[in-house]
């Protein structure tokens, strides 16, 4: 019984057939799911980025402002709309409680998206495709991003960042 001491010699009790089969399957499965991750890094097209730098929030803010100044093409809801060229470094700023700028991208082109926060932790969730990354103050996280669908997308913040958290929604346009 599980509440009494086991029979002496319990260590040498042989496994039954069902147990042996199941443990073998379980071990092989765990090896498989472990190897799947490096496999996808080599052969897959969606991976978490390994490019990141530490950065001071004020310095990041200055870089974002410069980026906006360089590529502004318009404005919406008081937020600048910015159209960076293909292959460019583009900068998204998270702060309590807004995302800026609004990015205007081209389908099939690759960009370097920088993510950082001016204050607390935030997270970028691109709706409706459901792509999610953490946005951390003091860290510049660089994703090499290629939109494969066109249309209007939103950025929803999904890391709790205070009372205005649920209103923190931004926008991305992808033109075909």
């Amino acid at each position: 019984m599980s509440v009494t001491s086991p029979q002496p010699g319990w260590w040498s009790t042989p496994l039954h057939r069902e147990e042996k089969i199941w443990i073998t399957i379980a071990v092989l499965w765990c090896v498989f799911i472990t190897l799947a991750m490096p496999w996808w890094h080599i052969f897959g097209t969606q991976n978490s980025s390994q490019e990141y730098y530490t950065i001071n929030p004020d310095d990041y803010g200055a870089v974002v402002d410069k980026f906006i100044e360089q590529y502004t093409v318009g404005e919406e809801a008081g937020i600048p709309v910015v159209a960076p060229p293909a292959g460019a470094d583009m900068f998204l700023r998270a702060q309590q409680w807004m995302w800026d700028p609004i990015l205007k991208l081209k389908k099939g082109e690759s960009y370097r998206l920088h993510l950082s926060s001016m204050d607390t932790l935030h997270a970028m969730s691109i709706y409706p495709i459901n792509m999610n990354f953490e946005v951390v103050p003091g860290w510049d996280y660089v994703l090499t991003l290629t939109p494969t669908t066109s249309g209007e997308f939103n950025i929803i913040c999904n890391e709790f960042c205070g009372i205005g958290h649920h209103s923190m929604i931004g926008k991305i346009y992808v033109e075909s």
Partner: protein
Amino acid sequence: MDLKPEEHPKGSFILIMIFFATFVLFYLLNWKYLSELWLVG
């Protein structure tokens, strides 16, 4: 412990196989969902 043939846990084995099949299916399905996302790295 020694088990007689009729005492072997056949039912549990079937249940764990159902569990495993569901696991594999749902796992592979999610990789497929991931592959439909924008390219990112």
